[in-house]
Protein backbone atom coordinates (compact mmCIF):
# COMPACT_ATOMS: atom_id res chain seq x y z
CA UNK A 1 0.00 0.00 0.00
CA UNK A 2 2.84 2.32 0.89
CA UNK A 3 4.55 1.58 -2.39
CA UNK A 4 1.38 2.34 -4.29
CA UNK A 5 0.97 5.61 -2.40
CA UNK A 6 4.51 6.65 -3.18
CA UNK A 7 3.85 5.98 -6.87
CA UNK A 8 0.81 8.23 -6.64
CA UNK A 9 -1.80 5.53 -7.34
CA UNK A 10 -5.38 6.27 -6.44
CA UNK A 11 -6.57 3.89 -3.75
CA UNK A 12 -9.56 4.41 -1.50
CA UNK A 13 -12.08 2.48 0.57
CA UNK A 14 -9.52 0.01 1.94
CA UNK A 15 -11.04 -2.60 4.24
CA UNK A 16 -9.96 -5.91 5.68
CA UNK A 17 -11.82 -8.89 4.28
CA UNK A 18 -9.78 -11.62 5.94
CA UNK A 19 -6.59 -12.36 7.79
CA UNK A 20 -4.47 -12.10 4.64
CA UNK A 21 -6.68 -10.09 2.35
CA UNK A 22 -7.93 -6.57 1.87
CA UNK A 23 -10.33 -5.05 -0.62
CA UNK A 24 -9.90 -1.58 -2.07
CA UNK A 25 -11.13 0.64 -4.83
CA UNK A 26 -8.67 1.63 -7.55
CA UNK A 27 -9.00 3.58 -10.75
CA UNK A 28 -8.46 1.86 -14.11
CA UNK A 29 -5.05 3.51 -14.59
CA UNK A 30 -3.98 2.64 -11.06
CA UNK A 31 -5.11 -0.93 -11.55
CA UNK A 32 -2.70 -1.48 -14.45
CA UNK A 33 0.07 0.29 -12.54
CA UNK A 34 -0.64 -1.92 -9.54
CA UNK A 35 0.32 -5.02 -11.50
CA UNK A 36 3.79 -3.60 -12.12
CA UNK A 37 4.25 -2.74 -8.45
CA UNK A 38 3.10 -6.19 -7.41
CA UNK A 39 6.14 -7.86 -8.87
CA UNK A 40 8.11 -9.56 -6.12
CA UNK A 41 5.58 -8.79 -3.36
CA UNK A 42 3.84 -12.20 -3.52
CA UNK A 43 0.40 -10.61 -3.51
CA UNK A 44 -2.47 -11.65 -5.71
CA UNK A 45 -4.89 -9.13 -7.11
CA UNK A 46 -8.44 -10.11 -8.02
CA UNK A 47 -11.11 -7.93 -9.53
CA UNK A 48 -14.27 -8.19 -7.43
CA UNK A 49 -16.43 -5.75 -9.34
CA UNK A 50 -16.05 -3.32 -12.20
CA UNK A 51 -18.20 -0.29 -12.62
CA UNK A 52 -18.06 3.23 -13.99
CA UNK A 53 -18.21 4.92 -17.38
CA UNK A 54 -14.82 3.66 -18.68
CA UNK A 55 -15.89 0.08 -17.97
CA UNK A 56 -19.29 0.60 -19.63
CA UNK A 57 -17.61 2.12 -22.67
CA UNK A 58 -15.02 -0.65 -22.87
CA UNK A 59 -17.85 -3.18 -23.15
CA UNK A 60 -19.05 -1.41 -26.26
CA UNK A 61 -15.61 -1.72 -27.83
CA UNK A 62 -16.51 -5.01 -29.51
CA UNK A 63 -20.13 -4.05 -30.25
CA UNK A 64 -19.55 -1.35 -32.78
CA UNK A 65 -22.95 -1.66 -34.45
CA UNK A 66 -24.73 -1.24 -31.09
CA UNK A 67 -22.60 1.77 -30.26
CA UNK A 68 -23.28 3.17 -33.69
CA UNK A 69 -27.01 2.55 -33.16
CA UNK A 70 -26.99 4.44 -29.89
CA UNK A 71 -25.12 7.31 -31.44
CA UNK A 72 -27.54 7.33 -34.37
CA UNK A 73 -30.57 7.36 -32.03
CA UNK A 74 -29.10 10.19 -29.98
CA UNK A 75 -28.30 12.14 -33.11
CA UNK A 76 -31.80 11.56 -34.47
CA UNK A 77 -33.33 12.73 -31.19
CA UNK A 78 -31.12 15.78 -31.17
CA UNK A 79 -32.06 16.68 -34.73
CA UNK A 80 -35.77 15.95 -34.20
CA UNK A 81 -35.83 18.18 -31.14
CA UNK A 82 -34.94 21.14 -33.36
CA UNK A 83 -38.33 20.94 -35.10
CA UNK A 84 -41.96 21.45 -34.11
CA UNK A 85 -43.98 18.29 -34.28
CA UNK A 86 -47.20 19.15 -32.48
CA UNK A 87 -49.57 22.12 -32.34
CA UNK A 88 -51.66 22.67 -29.22
CA UNK A 89 -54.46 25.24 -29.31
CA UNK A 90 -56.02 26.45 -26.06
CA UNK A 91 -58.90 28.73 -25.13
CA UNK A 92 -61.17 28.06 -28.12
CA UNK A 93 -64.88 28.50 -27.60
CA UNK A 94 -66.44 30.50 -30.42
CA UNK A 95 -63.38 30.34 -32.64
CA UNK A 96 -62.80 26.75 -33.73
CA UNK A 97 -59.42 25.05 -33.35
CA UNK A 98 -59.41 24.17 -37.06
CA UNK A 99 -59.65 27.87 -37.91
CA UNK A 100 -56.59 28.66 -35.79
CA UNK A 101 -54.68 25.73 -37.31
CA UNK A 102 -55.63 26.96 -40.81
CA UNK A 103 -54.53 30.51 -39.90
CA UNK A 104 -51.20 29.20 -38.62
CA UNK A 105 -50.77 27.12 -41.79
CA UNK A 106 -51.32 30.24 -43.88
CA UNK A 107 -48.51 31.87 -41.91
CA UNK A 108 -46.31 28.87 -42.66
CA UNK A 109 -46.50 27.47 -39.15
CA UNK A 110 -47.20 23.77 -39.33
CA UNK A 111 -45.74 20.59 -37.79
CA UNK A 112 -42.31 19.86 -39.20
CA UNK A 113 -40.92 23.40 -39.40
CA UNK A 114 -37.73 24.26 -37.48
CA UNK A 115 -38.18 25.79 -34.05
CA UNK A 116 -35.80 28.59 -34.90
CA UNK A 117 -38.15 29.87 -37.63
CA UNK A 118 -40.78 30.85 -35.06
CA UNK A 119 -40.92 34.07 -33.12
CA UNK A 120 -43.48 33.37 -30.43
CA UNK A 121 -44.26 36.99 -29.66
CA UNK A 122 -44.78 37.91 -33.31
CA UNK A 123 -46.86 34.81 -33.90
CA UNK A 124 -49.25 35.72 -31.07
CA UNK A 125 -49.71 39.20 -32.50
CA UNK A 126 -50.27 37.86 -36.01
CA UNK A 127 -52.93 35.38 -34.84
CA UNK A 128 -54.65 38.14 -32.87
CA UNK A 129 -54.79 40.35 -35.97
CA UNK A 130 -56.48 37.71 -38.14
CA UNK A 131 -59.78 37.46 -36.26
CA UNK A 132 -61.74 40.15 -34.46
CA UNK A 133 -63.20 37.51 -32.12
CA UNK A 134 -59.73 36.96 -30.65
CA UNK A 135 -58.97 39.50 -27.94
CA UNK A 136 -55.49 38.17 -27.19
CA UNK A 137 -53.26 35.42 -28.53
CA UNK A 138 -49.92 34.13 -27.34
CA UNK A 139 -47.58 31.39 -28.49
CA UNK A 140 -45.12 29.37 -26.46
CA UNK A 141 -42.73 26.55 -27.27
CA UNK A 142 -42.63 23.48 -25.05
CA UNK A 143 -39.94 21.27 -26.54
CA UNK A 144 -41.40 20.04 -29.82
CA UNK A 145 -44.88 21.38 -29.00
CA UNK A 146 -46.04 24.82 -30.10
CA UNK A 147 -48.84 25.98 -27.82
CA UNK A 148 -51.06 28.77 -29.04
CA UNK A 149 -53.34 30.20 -26.35
CA UNK A 150 -56.15 32.54 -27.26
CA UNK A 151 -58.61 34.60 -25.27
CA UNK A 152 -61.81 35.31 -27.07
CA UNK A 153 -63.48 38.70 -26.99
CA UNK A 154 -66.72 38.69 -25.01
CA UNK A 155 -70.11 39.47 -26.54
CA UNK A 156 -70.39 43.11 -27.49
CA UNK A 157 -72.94 44.86 -25.29
CA UNK A 158 -76.31 45.31 -26.94
CA UNK A 159 -77.20 48.93 -27.55
CA UNK A 160 -80.84 49.52 -26.78
CA UNK A 161 -82.62 51.70 -29.21
CA UNK A 162 -84.60 54.48 -27.66
CA UNK A 163 -88.24 54.13 -28.55
CA UNK A 164 -91.26 56.33 -27.94
CA UNK A 165 -91.22 58.02 -24.51
CA UNK A 166 -93.28 56.07 -22.03
CA UNK A 167 -93.55 54.88 -18.44
CA UNK A 168 -93.86 51.52 -16.69
CA UNK A 169 -97.05 50.63 -14.80
CA UNK A 170 -97.99 47.90 -12.37
CA UNK A 171 -99.66 45.01 -14.14
CA UNK A 172 -100.84 43.54 -10.81
CA UNK A 173 -101.25 44.44 -7.15
CA UNK A 174 -98.18 43.54 -5.15
CA UNK A 175 -95.43 44.45 -2.70
CA UNK A 176 -92.23 45.58 -4.37
CA UNK A 177 -89.15 43.56 -3.50
CA UNK A 178 -86.72 45.10 -5.96
CA UNK A 179 -86.99 47.95 -8.46
CA UNK A 180 -84.27 48.35 -11.11
CA UNK A 181 -84.79 51.24 -13.54
CA UNK A 182 -82.60 50.92 -16.66
CA UNK A 183 -83.92 54.15 -18.07
CA UNK A 184 -86.36 56.54 -16.42
CA UNK A 185 -86.92 57.33 -12.77
CA UNK A 186 -88.27 54.91 -10.14
CA UNK A 187 -91.27 56.20 -8.19
CA UNK A 188 -91.35 53.48 -5.54
CA UNK A 189 -88.90 51.74 -3.26
CA UNK A 190 -88.53 48.14 -2.16
CA UNK A 191 -91.20 47.32 0.44
CA UNK A 192 -93.86 49.61 -1.04
CA UNK A 193 -97.29 48.16 -1.85
CA UNK A 194 -98.61 49.07 -5.28
CA UNK A 195 -101.98 48.69 -6.95
CA UNK A 196 -102.60 47.58 -10.48
CA UNK A 197 -102.23 50.48 -12.89
CA UNK A 198 -99.98 52.65 -10.69
CA UNK A 199 -96.98 54.20 -12.41
CA UNK A 200 -93.78 52.50 -11.21
CA UNK A 201 -91.02 54.02 -13.39
CA UNK A 202 -91.65 57.29 -15.17
CA UNK A 203 -90.06 58.24 -18.46
CA UNK A 204 -90.52 61.93 -17.73
CA UNK A 205 -87.18 63.14 -16.38
CA UNK A 206 -88.20 66.79 -16.13
CA UNK A 207 -86.89 69.80 -18.06
CA UNK A 208 -88.83 68.54 -21.10
CA UNK A 209 -86.69 65.40 -21.27
CA UNK A 210 -88.65 62.22 -21.81
CA UNK A 211 -87.31 58.70 -22.39
CA UNK A 212 -88.76 55.28 -22.86
CA UNK A 213 -88.83 53.90 -19.33
CA UNK A 214 -87.19 50.48 -18.97
CA UNK A 215 -86.49 48.33 -15.99
CA UNK A 216 -87.60 45.48 -13.77
CA UNK A 217 -89.99 45.76 -10.87
CA UNK A 218 -89.94 42.49 -8.94
CA UNK A 219 -92.88 42.26 -6.58
CA UNK A 220 -94.61 39.68 -4.44
CA UNK A 221 -98.03 39.00 -5.85
CA UNK A 222 -100.88 37.12 -4.16
CA UNK A 223 -102.98 34.84 -6.33
CA UNK A 224 -106.17 33.12 -5.25
CA UNK A 225 -107.57 30.19 -7.20
CA UNK A 226 -110.72 28.33 -6.25
CA UNK A 227 -112.30 25.30 -7.82
CA UNK A 228 -115.62 23.79 -6.81
CA UNK A 229 -116.35 20.16 -7.51
CA UNK A 230 -120.11 19.38 -7.38
CA UNK A 231 -121.32 16.36 -5.49
CA UNK A 232 -123.02 15.09 -8.59
CA UNK A 233 -120.46 14.15 -11.19
CA UNK A 234 -120.66 12.47 -14.55
CA UNK A 235 -117.91 9.89 -14.46
CA UNK A 236 -117.13 6.63 -16.25
CA UNK A 237 -118.63 3.65 -14.36
CA UNK A 238 -119.19 -0.04 -15.05
CA UNK A 239 -122.36 -0.68 -17.08
CA UNK A 240 -122.54 -4.38 -16.12
CA UNK A 241 -121.60 -5.71 -19.55
CA UNK A 242 -118.43 -7.74 -19.84
CA UNK A 243 -116.46 -9.72 -22.40
CA UNK A 244 -114.01 -12.49 -21.57
CA UNK A 245 -111.38 -14.37 -23.53
CA UNK A 246 -108.42 -16.62 -22.85
CA UNK A 247 -104.95 -15.38 -23.57
CA UNK A 248 -102.24 -17.93 -24.27
CA UNK A 249 -98.61 -16.91 -24.32
CA UNK A 250 -95.38 -18.74 -24.92
CA UNK A 251 -92.07 -17.26 -23.82
CA UNK A 252 -93.55 -13.75 -23.65
CA UNK A 253 -95.25 -14.02 -27.08
CA UNK A 254 -99.06 -14.14 -26.99
CA UNK A 255 -101.73 -14.66 -29.61
CA UNK A 256 -103.53 -11.52 -30.83
CA UNK A 257 -106.49 -10.53 -28.61
CA UNK A 258 -110.02 -10.72 -30.12
CA UNK A 259 -111.88 -7.50 -30.92
CA UNK A 260 -113.43 -5.93 -27.80
CA UNK A 261 -117.04 -4.86 -28.40
CA UNK A 262 -116.84 -1.84 -26.01
CA UNK A 263 -115.66 1.71 -26.57
CA UNK A 264 -114.41 2.23 -23.04
CA UNK A 265 -113.64 -0.64 -20.72
CA UNK A 266 -111.58 -1.89 -17.78
CA UNK A 267 -109.39 -4.97 -18.06
CA UNK A 268 -109.17 -7.60 -15.35
CA UNK A 269 -106.61 -10.34 -15.66
CA UNK A 270 -107.03 -13.61 -13.83
CA UNK A 271 -104.35 -15.83 -12.35
CA UNK A 272 -101.85 -17.30 -14.81
CA UNK A 273 -101.84 -21.07 -15.32
CA UNK A 274 -99.03 -23.00 -16.92
CA UNK A 275 -99.98 -26.06 -18.90
CA UNK A 276 -98.37 -29.32 -17.72
CA UNK A 277 -96.50 -29.80 -20.94
CA UNK A 278 -92.96 -29.55 -22.15
CA UNK A 279 -93.50 -26.06 -23.54
CA UNK A 280 -94.15 -23.34 -20.92
CA UNK A 281 -97.48 -22.15 -22.35
CA UNK A 282 -99.17 -19.69 -19.99
CA UNK A 283 -102.96 -19.35 -19.94
CA UNK A 284 -104.66 -16.23 -18.51
CA UNK A 285 -108.35 -15.39 -18.42
CA UNK A 286 -108.93 -11.73 -19.37
CA UNK A 287 -112.24 -9.96 -18.60
CA UNK A 288 -113.13 -6.60 -20.16
CA UNK A 289 -115.83 -4.64 -18.30
CA UNK A 290 -117.67 -1.90 -20.19
CA UNK A 291 -117.49 1.67 -18.83
CA UNK A 292 -120.13 4.32 -19.59
CA UNK A 293 -120.56 7.92 -18.44
CA UNK A 294 -122.96 7.91 -15.50
CA UNK A 295 -124.20 10.50 -13.04
CA UNK A 296 -122.88 9.74 -9.59
CA UNK A 297 -123.13 11.31 -6.16
CA UNK A 298 -119.63 11.40 -4.68
CA UNK A 299 -118.53 11.63 -1.06
CA UNK A 300 -116.26 14.42 0.24
CA UNK A 301 -113.28 12.06 0.26
CA UNK A 302 -113.90 11.20 -3.38
CA UNK A 303 -114.39 14.84 -4.35
CA UNK A 304 -111.23 16.21 -2.68
CA UNK A 305 -108.71 14.94 -5.28
CA UNK A 306 -110.97 16.17 -8.08
CA UNK A 307 -111.26 19.66 -6.56
CA UNK A 308 -107.51 19.80 -5.82
CA UNK A 309 -106.64 18.80 -9.37
CA UNK A 310 -109.00 21.48 -10.72
CA UNK A 311 -107.49 24.18 -8.50
CA UNK A 312 -103.98 23.06 -9.43
CA UNK A 313 -104.85 23.34 -13.12
CA UNK A 314 -106.19 26.86 -12.58
CA UNK A 315 -102.98 27.81 -10.75
CA UNK A 316 -100.80 26.53 -13.59
CA UNK A 317 -102.82 28.61 -16.05
CA UNK A 318 -103.09 31.73 -13.88
CA UNK A 319 -99.53 32.23 -12.57
CA UNK A 320 -97.01 33.76 -14.95
CA UNK A 321 -94.48 31.24 -16.29
CA UNK A 322 -91.58 33.50 -15.36
CA UNK A 323 -92.89 33.89 -11.79
CA UNK A 324 -91.16 32.17 -8.88
CA UNK A 325 -93.73 30.53 -6.60
CA UNK A 326 -92.78 31.16 -2.96
CA UNK A 327 -95.66 29.48 -1.14
CA UNK A 328 -98.95 27.69 -1.79
CA UNK A 329 -101.61 27.35 0.90
CA UNK A 330 -104.70 25.23 0.32
CA UNK A 331 -108.11 25.74 1.99
CA UNK A 332 -111.12 23.48 1.71
CA UNK A 333 -114.79 24.46 2.05
CA UNK A 334 -118.00 22.53 1.59
CA UNK A 335 -121.54 23.79 0.97
CA UNK A 336 -124.69 22.49 -0.67
CA UNK A 337 -123.21 22.87 -4.18
CA UNK A 338 -120.11 20.83 -3.54
CA UNK A 339 -116.53 20.92 -2.26
CA UNK A 340 -114.38 23.97 -2.94
CA UNK A 341 -110.54 24.00 -2.81
CA UNK A 342 -108.94 27.46 -2.58
CA UNK A 343 -105.22 27.88 -3.32
CA UNK A 344 -103.50 31.02 -1.99
CA UNK A 345 -100.30 31.43 -3.95
CA UNK A 346 -97.54 33.95 -3.23
CA UNK A 347 -95.24 34.44 -6.22
CA UNK A 348 -92.42 36.81 -7.10
CA UNK A 349 -92.47 38.25 -10.61
CA UNK A 350 -91.81 41.29 -12.74
CA UNK A 351 -95.01 43.34 -12.66
CA UNK A 352 -93.84 46.23 -14.86
CA UNK A 353 -95.65 46.81 -18.14
CA UNK A 354 -95.13 49.61 -20.63
CA UNK A 355 -97.66 52.40 -20.98
CA UNK A 356 -98.10 56.05 -21.81
CA UNK A 357 -95.69 58.65 -20.52
CA UNK A 358 -98.23 60.21 -18.17
CA UNK A 359 -100.85 58.43 -16.13
CA UNK A 360 -103.73 60.54 -17.38
CA UNK A 361 -102.87 59.50 -20.93
CA UNK A 362 -103.19 55.83 -19.91
Amino acid at each position, binding site marked *: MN*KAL*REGLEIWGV*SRTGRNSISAYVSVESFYALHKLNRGLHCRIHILKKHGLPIALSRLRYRKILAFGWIAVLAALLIASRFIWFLRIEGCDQVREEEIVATLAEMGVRPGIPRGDITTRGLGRAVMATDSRIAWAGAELYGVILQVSIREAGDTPKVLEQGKPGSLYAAKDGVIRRITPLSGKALFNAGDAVLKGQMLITGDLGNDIAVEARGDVIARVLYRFSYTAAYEQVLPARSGNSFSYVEASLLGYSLPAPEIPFEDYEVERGAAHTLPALLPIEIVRVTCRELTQQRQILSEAELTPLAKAGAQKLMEQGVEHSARILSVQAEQQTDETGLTVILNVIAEENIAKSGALHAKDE
Partner: protein
Amino acid sequence: MHKNKRRIRLGRRLLSALDLPEEAAGTPKLTVLGREHVLIENHTGVYQYRAEEICLYTKAGMLYVTGEDLTLREITPERLYISGWVAGLRYEGEAGAKNNKKD
Protein backbone atom coordinates in the same frame (compact mmCIF):
# COMPACT_ATOMS: atom_id res chain seq x y z
CA MET B 1 18.25 10.72 18.98
CA HIS B 2 19.45 13.98 20.49
CA LYS B 3 20.18 15.20 17.01
CA ASN B 4 16.60 14.46 16.05
CA LYS B 5 15.18 16.35 19.04
CA ARG B 6 17.40 19.32 18.33
CA ARG B 7 16.26 19.33 14.71
CA ILE B 8 12.61 19.30 15.81
CA ARG B 9 13.12 22.17 18.24
CA LEU B 10 14.92 24.17 15.59
CA GLY B 11 12.14 23.52 13.09
CA ARG B 12 9.54 24.69 15.61
CA ARG B 13 11.41 27.91 16.28
CA LEU B 14 11.72 28.55 12.59
CA LEU B 15 8.00 27.99 12.03
CA SER B 16 7.18 30.20 14.96
CA ALA B 17 9.40 32.94 13.57
CA LEU B 18 7.75 32.63 10.16
CA ASP B 19 4.30 32.53 11.75
CA LEU B 20 3.49 29.17 10.12
CA PRO B 21 1.40 26.35 11.66
CA GLU B 22 3.30 23.52 13.22
CA GLU B 23 1.93 20.91 10.84
CA ALA B 24 3.79 22.65 8.06
CA ALA B 25 6.90 20.97 9.40
CA GLY B 26 5.32 17.55 9.06
CA THR B 27 3.97 17.22 12.59
CA PRO B 28 1.04 14.80 12.46
CA LYS B 29 -2.36 16.42 12.77
CA LEU B 30 -5.19 14.29 14.08
CA THR B 31 -8.84 15.26 13.68
CA VAL B 32 -11.25 12.99 15.53
CA LEU B 33 -14.94 13.32 14.75
CA GLY B 34 -16.96 11.47 17.38
CA ARG B 35 -15.91 7.86 17.62
CA GLU B 36 -16.41 7.00 13.99
CA HIS B 37 -14.07 9.15 11.95
CA VAL B 38 -10.39 10.02 12.29
CA LEU B 39 -8.42 12.13 9.86
CA ILE B 40 -4.67 11.87 10.11
CA GLU B 41 -2.51 14.31 8.20
CA ASN B 42 1.23 14.14 7.73
CA HIS B 43 1.64 10.41 8.20
CA THR B 44 4.63 8.85 6.57
CA GLY B 45 3.23 5.42 5.79
CA VAL B 46 1.18 2.48 6.96
CA TYR B 47 3.00 -0.06 9.05
CA GLN B 48 0.19 -2.40 9.76
CA TYR B 49 -3.48 -2.56 8.90
CA ARG B 50 -6.02 -4.77 10.60
CA ALA B 51 -9.70 -4.22 11.15
CA GLU B 52 -9.02 -3.79 14.90
CA GLU B 53 -5.80 -1.77 14.70
CA ILE B 54 -4.02 0.49 12.28
CA CYS B 55 -0.42 1.39 12.89
CA LEU B 56 1.07 4.36 11.09
CA TYR B 57 4.47 5.93 10.80
CA THR B 58 4.54 9.58 11.82
CA LYS B 59 7.26 12.04 12.71
CA ALA B 60 6.00 11.91 16.29
CA GLY B 61 6.39 8.14 16.51
CA MET B 62 4.28 5.11 15.69
CA LEU B 63 0.60 6.03 15.86
CA TYR B 64 -1.83 3.26 16.76
CA VAL B 65 -5.52 3.66 16.04
CA THR B 66 -7.50 0.92 17.71
CA GLY B 67 -11.15 0.05 17.33
CA GLU B 68 -13.47 -2.18 15.33
CA ASP B 69 -14.24 -2.47 11.62
CA LEU B 70 -11.63 0.14 10.81
CA THR B 71 -11.59 1.08 7.14
CA LEU B 72 -9.17 3.30 5.26
CA ARG B 73 -11.73 5.38 3.45
CA GLU B 74 -9.22 7.68 1.85
CA ILE B 75 -5.51 7.19 1.62
CA THR B 76 -2.97 9.52 0.06
CA PRO B 77 0.75 10.08 0.87
CA GLU B 78 -0.21 12.92 3.25
CA ARG B 79 -3.69 12.13 4.50
CA LEU B 80 -5.43 9.12 5.86
CA TYR B 81 -9.10 9.05 6.63
CA ILE B 82 -10.23 6.22 8.88
CA SER B 83 -13.80 5.28 9.58
CA GLY B 84 -15.20 2.61 11.85
CA TRP B 85 -15.65 2.39 15.60
CA VAL B 86 -12.61 4.08 17.17
CA ALA B 87 -11.60 2.89 20.63
CA GLY B 88 -8.32 4.75 21.07
CA LEU B 89 -5.28 6.50 19.70
CA ARG B 90 -1.80 6.12 21.09
CA TYR B 91 1.76 6.90 20.22
CA GLU B 92 4.58 4.47 20.74
CA GLY B 93 8.26 4.65 20.09
CA GLU B 94 10.53 7.62 19.58
CA ALA B 95 9.67 10.79 17.74
CA GLY B 96 10.96 10.87 14.18
CA ALA B 97 9.85 7.33 13.31
CA LYS B 98 10.12 6.99 9.59
CA ASN B 99 8.94 4.55 7.01
CA ASN B 100 12.30 3.45 5.80
CA LYS B 101 11.11 0.11 4.63
CA LYS B 102 11.98 -0.61 1.06
CA ASP B 103 8.75 -2.66 0.63
